[in-house]
Each structure stands twice: as C-alpha cells, then as structure tokens.
C-alpha cells in the first residue's frame, strides 16, 4: 500500500500557517483547530503534503470540511489608511469591536476568507485607526492567523514532533529543545547496531522515538527504554507510525521492576537467548505476564552490556548514573540531559571523583532563527533557552 496516501489509523500532523497539531485519523472523525471544528473525511485517500481549504459545511454553521486545493487565488494585502501616534489612549476594554461574536461566526460561515474577514474586522473596530502602525501590523497578522483558511496534512517526523512539542510546552519534553535532541543523538553514537539504554522520566516519548528512528527498520539494534511509572509516555513513539518490527525493538520497562528482575535472576541471563528458553517453558508453566517477559528480554540484553546510556530525568542524575553505569560497556558514552546546569555540575564532580569516566563535558547551546527577506534580514526577535548535556566516556 502506498505510504504516501493518507489512511484511517495514521497519525497525521495538521498544519495551519505556523501552527501544527498531531492527530490520529479515525473514520468520520473531527478535529478542533483554533476556533473551528473540522471534519477530516475528505483527506482520507489523498496524499501527504496536499493542501486543503476549510469550507463551511452545508447546513451546519459550526462544522467545517476540507476541500483539496490545487491552486491558490491571488492574495491581496490589506491597506492601512491611518495610524495613531502612541499606545497611550488604547485600552483594551473588550468594547472596541462593533461586530458581535455572532456576527463574526456568521462571517466565518458565509465564506471563510481570512483577508475579507480581517478587512471587515478593521472596518468595524473603534480603535484600529488610533493604534500605531506597529500595533496595526501586529493586529492584522494575529487576525489573519485566526481566520486563515488553508491547512496542510503532513506525515509526522522527529523534526516536526520535537518542534511541535517544544512550542506547545517545553515541559512536555523535560525542556529538550531540537538542538539538545540532535546532540543527544550524536554524542550517544547511536546507529543501526548495538543495544542502547535510556532512562526517560517524561519526554512524551520523544527521546525513545528519536533513538528508535536512528536504529532504523530491520536492524539488529535494540533500545531499552526505562521509565519510572506504570506506563511509559509514548505519544511520539506511536505518532511515528513505526512498523511493528521496529517498534518491537524498543523495550519499554519500569526502572524498579527491571532492576529487581535483573538482581533476582542474574544467573539465568547467561543462558541461551530468552526466546528459545521461553518456548520450552511455555508448555510447562502458565504463560508469564507481558511485563515480565519484557523485563526478562531487557535483562538478557543488559547482561551483555549496552553501547550507550542516555538519561533525561526529573530526578537527580547521580543515583541513576551510579546504578545504571554498570550496564554500560567500557569504551562507550554516557549522555545526561537536564534543563538546569546544577544537577549536572553535581554529576560532573561525582564522576571526576570515581575515576571510571573521562572526557567529561557539560555543553549548552545558543540557538537562533533568522528572518531572511530582501532588505529585512535579521535574527528573529524571540528566542528560547535550551538545556544542558553532560557527556562522558566510560573506561574499560
């Protein structure tokens, strides 16, 4: 089946101007997009990357439907006729717009055209003409965004998910920004081989998804994904639409549970691969619960040693590193992310004392986007802050 075709059951990213939303496509499902409720039926069977126009649903003012567009009408710009001098007399008392919510809703339902709606809003605003030119431009941009009528359907990627999660709320990914994520991946030396160990106490599945993406499809590599709760966070893991073979090589286990399993059954993990052993046992004893099977699978791999240890935790990293570093093969890298520098400073001093790690560094990034337009090129006026990454090399 053509993977470029949008299917029911896919996770899709709906993009409207700079705004993106992750959505699992159901048959006859709707999606709320800003102030709109949108029916998605028409996108099924179309191709990823296509653009759709929101159109009012006949007979239902509240509902919008999507129609595929193949060309754009000419867009005309809105002229500002008069501007005010300063913002001294502008008080936003909510009374400045003559159009009622009902009027606006009617406008939207007649024909959703951001340009014409914004023009009507301006014409009915008591304060627009006394705003400064600067505020007027801001107002137009904001309103155009609100009533923008085109959406695009995209297939989720790590890049899009990382960007979207961070924009929505950096705490969704423990503060991991896209540059942080990119460097965690390179410093861990992850590739389509080996076993990789991750402790993640809440990146919405972004970190395991990104690592699994680097392991690739059909490879012999594994990711052991330790989490602190009953269930791991997996939004990004499922959003990536990984094939089952690949998804299955990400072993999600509870930190306590797997460590207990490891310490209690240590001697058994040197035996032949678990799969064989399990099969023999299957007939004799009642089938083990799934979590226990996963724990044992993880322990088999841990016992052989892992090729990277990656930690992104809410908890203080020292105890975690002390416990998990035993599984890291000598000659491989430890990567610890934190939104604050101080816990990593503690870890730095801890590792220096213990002497079994070298090449210890803490890094952070300054990242800035640019507006590049003829005669108007400058860095974007807003900037975010990233986190800190400690990297260290384990000795044999």
């Amino acid at each position, binding site marked *: 089946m053509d993977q470029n075709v949008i299917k029911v059951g896919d996770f899709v990213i709906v993009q409207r101007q700079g705004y993106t939303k992750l959505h699992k496509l159901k048959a006859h499902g709707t999606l709320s997009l800003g102030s709109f409720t949108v029916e998605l039926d028409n996108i099924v069977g179309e191709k990823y990357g296509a653009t759709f126009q929101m159109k009012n649903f006949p007979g239902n003012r509240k509902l919008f439907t999507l129609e595929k567009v193949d060309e754009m009408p000419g867009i005309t710009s809105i002229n500002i006729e008069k501007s005010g*001098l*300063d913002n001294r007399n502008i008080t936003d008392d909510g009374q400045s717009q003559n159009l009622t919510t009902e009027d606006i809703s009617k406008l939207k339902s007649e024909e959703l055209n951001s340009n014409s709606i914004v023009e009507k809003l301006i014409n009915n605003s008591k304060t627009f003409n006394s705003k400064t030119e*600067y505020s007027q431009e801001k107002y137009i941009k904001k309103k155009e965004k609100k009533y923008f009528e085109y959406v695009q359907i995209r297939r989720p990627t790590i890049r899009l998910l990382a960007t979207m999660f961070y924009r929505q709320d950096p705490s969704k990914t423990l503060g991991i920004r896209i540059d942080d994520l990119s460097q965690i991946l390179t410093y861990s030396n992850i590739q389509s081989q080996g076993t990789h160990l991750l402790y993640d106490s809440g990146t919405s599945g972004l970190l395991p998804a990104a690592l699994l993406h680097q392991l690739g499809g059909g490879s012999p590599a594994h990711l052991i994904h330790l989490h*602190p709760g009953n269930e791991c966070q997996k939004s990004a893991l499922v959003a990536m639409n990984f094939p089952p073979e690949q998804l299955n090589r990400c072993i999600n286990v509870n930190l306590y*549970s797997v460590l*207990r399993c490891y310490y209690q059954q240590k001697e058994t993990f040197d035996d032949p691969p678990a799969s064989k052993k399990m099969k023999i046992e299957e007939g004799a004893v009642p089938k083990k619960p799934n979590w226990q099977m996963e724990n044992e699978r993880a322990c088999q791999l841990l016992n052989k040693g892992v090729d990277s240890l990656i930690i992104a935790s809410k908890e203080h990293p020292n105890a975690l590193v002390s416990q998990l570093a035993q599984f890291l093969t000598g000659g491989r890298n430890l990567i610890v992310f934190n939104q604050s520098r101080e816990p990593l400073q503690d870890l730095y001093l801890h590792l220096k004392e213990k002497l079994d790690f070298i090449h210890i560094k803490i890094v952070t990034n300054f990242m800035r986007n640019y507006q590049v337009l003829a005669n108007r090129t*400058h*860095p974007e*006026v807003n900037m975010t*802050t990233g986190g800190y990454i400690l990297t260290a090399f384990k000795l044999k």
Partner: protein
Amino acid sequence: MSFDDYKAVIDEGDTVILYLTISQIYSIRAEAKTLSKKGVEVENVFQTPYGALKCADLIGKPYGSKITLSKGWGYVMQPTPELWTQTLPHRTQIIYTPDISMIILQLEIAPGSIVVESGTGSGSLSHALIRAVKPTGHLYTFDFHKNRVELVREEFAQHGLSDYVTVSQRDVCSSGFGDELENKADSVFLDLPHPWQAIPHTLNVIKETGGRICSFSPCIEQVQKSCEVLSKLGFQEIQTMEVLQTSYSVQTRKLPVLDLDFLKSEKDGTETKGKEREVVKCVTAVPPASMPGHTGYLTFASLPPVWARSLQISLNQAQEDNSPDL
C-alpha cells in the same frame, strides 16, 4: 519634575514609578486632577490589579516607601531612564537598556558632552542621554514626525529636563542637522530606516577635534550600507555589535533522589514507587521561557580629528583594495 537629581520625597507633578511586582511596573503622575479622554478635568485615579490609587495621595510620600492599596500594596520609586524605558508610552519600537548602556559608553558621553540624536522616537534613549550630559552638556534630538516631537517635548518639560535638551522636527536625511550645530557635536546617534543617507551630514556636525557615531539598525542590510558609507567617508574603528541580555530569577528546586540500591536485596515485589521520596535542594537561576533574540545591530565608528581625516580615507580605501574576493 522628578528626573533631575536624586529626590527624597514625592512633589506634586512628579512622575512616579509604581512597582507592584517585577513584571507590573507603571509610571503615574502625582497630580490630583487629570484630563479625561473628553478633555474634562477629573480626579486622577490609577487602577491597579490590587485596587485603585488616588494619585494625590502620593504627594509628600518618600520615594522607596510602601503604598497600601485596597487589595494589596505597591512601592513608589523615583523614575530613572531605565524605569522610564520600561513604562513609557510606545509611539515606536524603542531602544532598551542593554543597547542604551552600550551606546553611551561607546559614544564616550559624559557631563558636558554635546550629543545629536535622530530620530527621537518615544524618547527612551533620550532620557538616558540627558542624564549623562547634564548639567553642562546638551542633547539635540530630531524627529521627522511633528506629533512625536510635540509629545516628547512636553514629556521633557514634565520631567524637568527642558534645560538640557532641544527637540526639533526635521528630516535629517534630506536636510541635515542645521547650521547651528556645525562642528558642535561630540557624538551622533542615528536610529533611522536609511541611516546611510544621514551619515554624510554628520561630517558637518561633529567637532573638528573628532567624535563618535552610532547607528542602530534592526536589519543587516542597513548595517551593510551604513558601514560602506562610513568607510568611504573616512570614519575609523568601524565596529558592528549585538548585545542580548538575559534576565534570571533564582529558584530553589527540589529534585527527587531515587533509592535503587534496595532492589539488590529486597525480594518481594511491592510497590515500585515506594522509595523515591527523598529530595535534594538545588538553587538554580531560571531564564525566561522566551527572551529577546534580537533588538538591533549597533554600528560604532570614530571620525578622526580634521588633521587626520584625509589620511584615514586613503587607509580605508587601501584596505578595501587589499581584501581578497570570496
């Protein structure tokens, strides 16, 4: 009248800074009456999130003291150019304190300096320039817009700064800075859409003994054109820079410390989350979620004294000829 010298007590007519929280700072006037939007004289009451404040009540209060509001309290501060920059009515994009600070130091401004500014804009920089040059120096500030000129002139009067500043309406790009300022200025500041059109005129206003110039521009293309003109005209020490300030608040965070060692010995499979309640306190400086990523590029240059100018032009040209192509 509260911008000149250090004051102890609020006088009638003073502009006063009302501090509620670090992000709620307002400028108000200590006057009993004010004009309503319709031009009628009404009681001057300032609405705060913590209740109304009768501005007349401020008169006689010491600066730095606590003010009780109906639902909370605030503090009154004597305005400084920095506080004014935070609270002034925006008529334009304004210049903020990190850039202002660098401009004053790089332009080598001190009491007695004669400074020329264009455009005046909302007067954010002007207040800091006046503080630096008074009482013996002077600021000549120009703006293209008549109304801005009038508003800022009124503000300077209200702030008690009129003696130290002259505000004029003028398009300096086409008309220059006027004959009265010929060879008068120690330094010139430009915040204009097309600074390269004004730069040639600065040759006439800077003192014969030389001076400094600064151009503030948001876009790199403006910088490129300005630097080219500066170099051709014999300015030296041409330097473009950017200053971005981050402001931190300090917090004590509690990080859970996981106890995992017990798993080695304990045999029964009780609650997995039972043992993680230990915490470690961690003092950390927290940056804002979003910070300024750009204000503008600051380009500085020196105009050499007259006796060294021609030499500088030939030097600049030689350097340009000498630079290899990309």
